[in-house]
């Protein structure tokens, strides 16, 4: 009796499974619902999802820019240079910037982009996004049909870099409602379907002002797990994604006939702060001579690129040098300081082992970096004690309680060096927490704040960073790579642009 019952139950289970399997099985690897097969629709996986479409809120403008829906007055090109987009030109007279809009620019509903609408967008972004609250303090004036001015109060040469930030996207505020589910903007694509916290579909903006988009549309699937993206592209269900993991990249490299992998150094920097209040010049120098960025980059298997300074080497403000790793020189420095090697292989002085405290937080591979640095310093004879903090800003960055403090941040947010220099090297800056002090550098930072000539700015930035390197105040280890995989035939997904907030454009295409 029981055998019969069990057989019936198992049989029913298998039948149900088979029916599930047979049902609509042609959907595997096919286009999403409503998509005709002759249409060019790219399928993308993203590890984030939006709850609303407001580009001015927090970092949401990054994503609406990625979807090809929003644009800004200026754009960052592949060489990290600001180029006009919705704006045609900009010029500064002291603290007053005059910006002329591109006469051809209009929204997806056909309405023109007017100075008044731009000013309203900038003010709104300043009000709801505290990182741009300075835009509420400026004075704006409409000059004519296409021109307006921004009076920043004091000379502010980085204004156009700020205006390239995707959070300052220009939307048609009169026709976007509360921007929770609808958005009218100027990009080559328009939102066709939006599921808060889930999939987003975009369609070609048939009225795009800057040429016709090559694709008919795109679908952005929310896939927080990298492994799912890896399986989905293999199954032909997506065409491309960024933030490829090192093991997945290795697999794609083995199949060049199917995939194209593009790796470029991006803008996210891994660096360490050497505490001058607790480490003398010799120890700091010895540390910097020991840390081998190249070996660290190799260990992290293509996810990072070793760096000399905080900015990419292609940028005009990324031209700095540092000494190559030299273990012998490091040992000589320590021995010159009176340290001798003990039986455990560690340096000691006056019976006290040379031990340093390295603080880090477990994100952006800093845990791996901490372990690698510990290993490299051990080989020289420096004992390292690791401390992992949950909240670096509330602990070691705030208190300065470390010898070496690891951190990761975007060093180049808009094609200009001032932001990073100002928050890591200026007196009182939040990340100048290792006691770095140099009057000459402070003067240069002051000059950089108001210098309008781009070449002079790059020169000043290089001098400032070079001083920090020479004084062993910091160690710049690696820039995270932007790794994009595309199925062959897909092109133009901003794979060569170091900024994370670009992806779809009118030039994106697929065979």
């Amino acid at each position: 009796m029981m055998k019969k019952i069990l057989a019936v139950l198992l049989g029913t289970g298998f039948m149900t499974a088979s029916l599930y399997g047979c049902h609509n099985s042609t959907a595997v690897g096919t286009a999403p619902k409503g998509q005709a097969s002759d249409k060019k629709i790219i399928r993308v996986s993203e590890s984030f999802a939006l709850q609303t479409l407001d580009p001015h809120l927090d970092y949401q403008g990054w994503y609406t820019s990625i979807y090809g829906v929003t644009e800004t007055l200026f754009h960052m090109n592949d060489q990290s240079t600001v180029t006009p987009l919705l704006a045609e030109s900009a010029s500064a007279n002291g603290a007053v910037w005059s910006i002329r809009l591109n006469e051809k620019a209009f929204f997806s509903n056909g309405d023109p982009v007017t100075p008044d609408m731009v000013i309203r967008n900038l003010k709104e972004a300043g009000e709801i996004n505290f990182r741009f609250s300075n835009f509420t303090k400026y004075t704006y004036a409409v000059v004519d049909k296409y021109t307006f001015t921004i009076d920043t109060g004091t000379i502010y040469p980085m204004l156009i870099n700020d205006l390239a930030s995707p959070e300052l996207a220009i939307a048609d505020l009169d026709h976007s409602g509360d921007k929770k589910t609808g958005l009218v903007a100027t990009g080559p694509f328009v939102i066709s379907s939006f599921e808060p916290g889930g999939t987003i579909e975009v369609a070609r903006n048939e009225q795009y002002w800057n040429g016709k988009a090559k694709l008919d549309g795109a679908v952005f699937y929310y896939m927080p797990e990298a492994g799912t993206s890896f399986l989905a592209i293999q199954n032909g269900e997506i065409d491309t994604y960024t933030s490829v993991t090192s093991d997945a990249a290795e697999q794609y490299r083995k199949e060049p006939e199917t995939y194209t992998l593009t790796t470029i150094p991006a803008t996210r920097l891994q660096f360490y702060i050497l505490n001058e209040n607790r480490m003398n010049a010799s120890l700091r120098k010895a540390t910097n001579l020991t840390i081998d960025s190249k070996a660290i980059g190799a260990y992290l298997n293509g996810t990072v690129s070793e760096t000399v300074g905080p900015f990419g080497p292609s940028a005009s403000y990324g031209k700095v040098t540092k000494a190559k790793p030299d273990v012998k020189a490091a040992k000589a420095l320590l021995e010159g300081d009176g340290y001798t090697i003990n039986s455990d292989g560690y340096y000691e002085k006056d019976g006290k082992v040379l031990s340093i405290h390295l603080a880090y937080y477990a994100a952006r591979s800093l845990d791996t970096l901490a372990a690698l640095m510990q290993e490299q310093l051990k080989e020289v004879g420096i004992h390292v004690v690791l401390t992992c903090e949950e909240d670096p800003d509330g602990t070691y960055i705030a208190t300065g309680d470390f010898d070496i403090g690891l951190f990761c941040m975007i060093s180049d947010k808009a094609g200009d060096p001032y932001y990073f220099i100002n928050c890591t090297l200026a007196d009182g800056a939040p990340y100048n927490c290792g006691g770095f002090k140099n009057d000459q550098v402070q003067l240069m930072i002051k000059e950089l704040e108001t210098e309008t000539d781009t070449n002079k700015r790059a020169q000043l930035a290089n001098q400032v960073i070079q001083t920090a390197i020479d004084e062993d105040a910091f160690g710049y280890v690696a820039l995270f790579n932007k790794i994009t995989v595309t199925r062959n035939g897909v092109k133009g997904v901003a794979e060569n642009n170091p900024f994370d907030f670009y992806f779809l454009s009118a030039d994106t295409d697929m065979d």
Partner: protein
Amino acid sequence: MKRYVSGRLLQLIPVLFGVTFLTFALLSLAPGDPVQKKLSAQGIAVTKDVLLETRKEMGLDRPWTLRYASWLFDLLHGDLGDSYKDGTPVAGRLVKAMKYTGILAISAFLLALVISLPLGIYGGIKKAGFLDRMIQLFCLAGYAVPGFLLAVLLIYLFCIRLKVFPIIAKGTVQGLFLPTLTLALPLASRLTRQVRASVLNQMEMEYVDGAKARGVLKPYILIFHILRNAMISILTVFGLSIGTLLGGSVVIENIFMWPGMGKMVMDSITARDYPVVQGFVLVMAVIYVIINLIVDISYHLLDPRLEEI
């Protein structure tokens, strides 16, 4: 009975107060600043002035006890607050996530029942037979294989090799099948063990021998005596299991792109999105209390010999 149920429901009030107070206190005392997390989410540093200004705007410059009182006041007016992260109402987020988690939890639970009840009963009746050993092996494997590995294996088998399911199939019956199976298999292995052990225990009771001696049919003994008595302990495990399932599974939800409670609360903890975490804790506390109440009531219904409640 009515008095008992209303008494238990009244107990919800101190339970919810205690749970939410403790959660609020722990979140506030834990390291991590929601404002810093919100403004530096993409790794861009912000000035101290911006941090202070934002804290003030979000009301985070007030002591946590005052913030808790304010949260409680809003709660009593039916408002769970807005997410720190994106400003969306917490209630709406919870309802949406609960819908997804509920569907997944119920389907996984039902599938686990379908698997575990026959296997557990069979294992209990045919102890130490070949099939029983296979069932025990299944239980062991269900315990041992981690959820993420099982999920990837199932995707590889059903989506890549057999191509019977697409990986991207959210919102369809097909999309539900693999996450359900991933959640159901480990749960089924736990439940099978429990059912088997309970049936075995009852099989050794004298009343079973007595019934057999009286010539009562075996299926009758099994269904109306053994299972009925075994159900008390089985129900406890079922109750706890459904509670756990309704809390969501971060790993399964991440892998299968299932926007349920587990993923939502994990993201919220990482982002220090306190209002969402508070809302989640509140909902889970209510769910657990209600499930426990249902289980207690069902004890009585199953076994009238239990003390009158």
